[in-house]
């Protein structure tokens, strides 16, 4: 009797296990829920048709946007002018002009009653603080930047001289002013900068002062020739982006959300600087190298 019961229970248990195994295997055969091919195909046609229309509209609007190289940077003339305006308005004393010893600024040979003498005025020293009143870009084309520069200021100069044989020293106020058009050539440097190189140009610095030396009254006006490219050094405008990026790499040994950071060097090459539609353009190709 006990044997019969045991056998019966054993059979039930074995059948139960087998049934469970079958269920388990069947469940492992369940398929991933995906739409049928026909349904996907229908959607593909529908989406493609709509996309074609939208793409056509977008492409027509951004036709002007060209990317010749991996990275293209465009700087608007207005942005540069806003920077230059701040530079001009920042302070009143932008340039210092020092008057050096200049002999015989004025020389007048006289002969009175057979006696010869010379009236003269020398500049001993002087200083004028010049204010950059304005610097504005007016044109950006043909790889050149054209700007109007206006500077002015006043200061004092010390003069000495002789009038009818009598020596004297005085000091006088002096006014200086310059307004002219200047140009910078836009050059590319291989280190990710745009070089703004002043194009040589003779400018006239208007000088005005009055000399009163022993009742010798001389209003003095002089245009001093300045070479623009001597006064302004080439300006490097940095354009390149970061040259080093830490690349986060997942790792088998790291927990989710933890990464190995490997620094990589970004090299810019084939760089090019130019002007286009009143914009300053800089472009480059890149390559990336892991830093060991």
């Amino acid at each position, binding site marked *: 009797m006990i044997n019969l019961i045991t056998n019966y229970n054993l059979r039930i248990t*074995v059948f139960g296990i*087998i049934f469970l195994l*079958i269920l388990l*295997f069947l469940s*492992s*055969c369940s398929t*991933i829920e995906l*739409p*049928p*091919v026909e349904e*996907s195909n229908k959607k*593909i046609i529908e*989406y493609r048709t709509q*996309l074609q229309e939208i*793409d056509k*509209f*977008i*492409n027509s*609007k*951004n036709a*002007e*946007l060209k990317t010749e*190289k*991996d990275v*293209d*940077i*465009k*700087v*608007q003339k207005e*942005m540069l002018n*806003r*920077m230059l305006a701040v*530079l001009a308005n*920042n*302070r009143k004393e*932008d340039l210092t*002009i020092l008057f*050096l010893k*200049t002999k015989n600024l004025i020389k007048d040979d006289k002969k009175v009653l057979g006696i010869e003498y010379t009236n003269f005025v020398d*500049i001993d020293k002087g200083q004028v603080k010049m204010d950059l009143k304005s610097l504005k870009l007016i044109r950006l084309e043909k790889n050149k930047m054209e700007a109007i520069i206006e500077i002015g200021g006043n200061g004092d100069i010390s003069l000495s001289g002789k009038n009818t044989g009598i020596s004297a020293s005085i000091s006088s106020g002096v006014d200086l002013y310059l307004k002219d058009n200047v140009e910078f050539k836009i050059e590319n440097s291989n280190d990710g900068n745009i070089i703004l190189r002043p194009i040589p140009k003779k400018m006239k610095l208007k000088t005005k002062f009055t000399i009163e030396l022993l009742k010798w009254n001389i209003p003095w006006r*002089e245009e001093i*020739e*300045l070479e623009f490219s*001597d*006064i*302004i*050094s080439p*300006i*490097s405008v*940095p*354009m390149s*982006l970061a040259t080093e*990026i830490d*690349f*986060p790499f*997942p*790792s088998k040994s790291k927990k989710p959300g933890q*990464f190995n950071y490997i620094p990589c060097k970004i090299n810019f090459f084939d760089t090019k600087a130019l002007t286009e539609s009143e914009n300053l353009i800089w472009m480059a190709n*890149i390559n990336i190298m*892991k830093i060991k």
Partner: protein
Amino acid sequence: MKFSYTFIISIITLILSGCTVVEHIAGVGFDSEQFEKARESKILELRLKSAEKLSKRMELNSPLFDYDLSVAFNEEMVNKLLAQYKDATGMLDDATDYVIKDVKAKLENGSAIASFELLAHNETHNVDVLLLLDCLILIDEEKKDLVLKVEPFNISPITTTRGVYSAAKEIINKMIKLNLANLNKSLPPLKIPLNIENKIPIPGNKTDIKSKINLTIVNPERNIKFNLKIKEILFFKEKIVVGLGLEKVEVE
């Protein structure tokens, strides 16, 4: 009784073979066309939604590309960045590691999609599955950096290279059912510092002029410092445009 067991075992064998559970597979065993079409449809749907958004932006009155400074990256640049991840390894879950065999990004109007070809290996079942993981490329601003993130939205098996079909199916199922947001944790954000040098040095110099009046002109060195702020990031076919605005300028 013996007969009963033999009969049951035969039935089980029949069922199992019907399910191809014991069938060793290499590149076969699932309906690749179904996956392929479902993937294509999903990508197109996503592209359409993004393109619609961009199209609405372009219909706005605010002029396009009228930024103080703009940086445009082309598709090749994005691919050069992503190519660094070729052969990178990681874990999909505790038992499944992967190696990135290939990665390609495609820039479209309104969206950018990166497709990672992952060779996943499940240790428990000793199965290798070549998977195609499609991710949306997102670009965010974080301080002065551009943060390139990839957001997985689709996984499709391409082929099973080693293993048992049932196990392959299980691993594929598991991966596809896996919360894609969690998978995102395996794909780190890439920070691209957008630190276009925010300083223009104006070099100083000293010039002696010998003329009717002798002069020395002293031009002191100055720096124009400025801040740029990201205004907009737009995806177009084969390019990404980051528009920046000049925020603050000072001279020191």
